């Protein structure tokens, strides 16, 4: 069976036995998601690339401790979240992302004005995100961008579903407040 058709569980089982190609399959499967999550957390493309690699390296090292009942995706995101949090703690500064280069703007047919408006909106949104405390930012990203359920977020962050529910509501309120302030 080609590596790409293996399930996460099968890839993890093979990786645990030392199959680097199976682990490469997992990297290909999740690199975009881990990268964009870390990017929105730390705000720097270069640092996000480095932290993404670091997260996968740590995952490889920790694979023997992985429990089959845990989803690989949520487990990987818990590692990525810790890597991003550690990085933010080390520098205690949040940088802003140059959004123009890394998101899909409306196509040519939308016209230059619409494209400019979309860019401005996203820039304001990223700035509003950056003003959130990191625990609120990560929970918004996991829910809204990674489309995780409360149960998955709970597993990824190691918090109860009740905490997910309340923290997410607070984060949304704060984000809307910051976004309104930027767009007013």
């Amino acid at each position: 069976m080609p590596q790409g058709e293996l399930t996460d569980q099968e890839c993890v089982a093979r990786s645990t036995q030392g199959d680097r190609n199976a682990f490469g399959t997992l990297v290909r499967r999740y690199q975009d998601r881990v990268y964009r999550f870390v990017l929105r957390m730390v705000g720097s493309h270069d640092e996000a690339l480095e932290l993404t690699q670091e997260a996968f390296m740590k995952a490889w090292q920790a694979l023997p401790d992985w429990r089959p009942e845990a989803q690989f995706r949520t487990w990987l995101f818990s590692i990525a979240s810790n890597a991003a949090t550690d990085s933010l703690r080390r520098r205690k500064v949040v940088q802003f992302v140059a959004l123009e280069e890394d998101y899909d703007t409306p196509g040519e047919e939308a016209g230059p004005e619409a494209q400019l408006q979309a860019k401005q909106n996203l820039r304001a949104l990223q700035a509003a995100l950056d003003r959130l405390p990191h625990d609120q930012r990560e929970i918004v990203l996991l829910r809204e961008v990674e489309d995780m359920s409360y149960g998955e977020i709970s597993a990824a962050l190691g918090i109860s579903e009740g905490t997910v529910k309340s923290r997410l509501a607070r984060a949304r309120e704060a984000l809307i407040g910051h976004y309104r302030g930027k767009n007013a």
Partner: protein
Amino acid sequence: MKERTQSECPRTEQLSALIDDELAGAVRAEIEAHAGSCPLCGAMLREFGELRVALKPLAAARPGFDLAPLIVQRLTAGGRRARPVRDRNWWQGWQLLPSGLAAAGMLSAGVYLGALLVGGAGVTALEPAAMAVFDAVPPGGLCLGSSSCYSLGR
């Protein structure tokens, strides 16, 4: 089912959970009914929906190249750290028993032969006086009291 009035607005987290489809059936229906008639909660629900739409483009960010070859290369160079494992299993432990017994036997024989050379067959215990050098007052030290020195006959 009892509908909430505007003065009984649900907490924000209930509206947030509603948009995430994380409320159980009865509670969900109650919150939905309230939000449909309450301008404050209805507006908040719409804002949560608009925020979701606004955040979607953030999912488009990509690293720009495939990280897998790079990571696999680093794995090959670094490998995986060895997990702590027990050095020997029980069988390997039992295999050490004969050599252990032999070593213990040789040590006992050495002590016995040494005792024969020093004191003959009747090895006697050392007199307490011979051990006086090990008492609490070091040689040349001051006596704390006459009994601590003179009782030993100094």
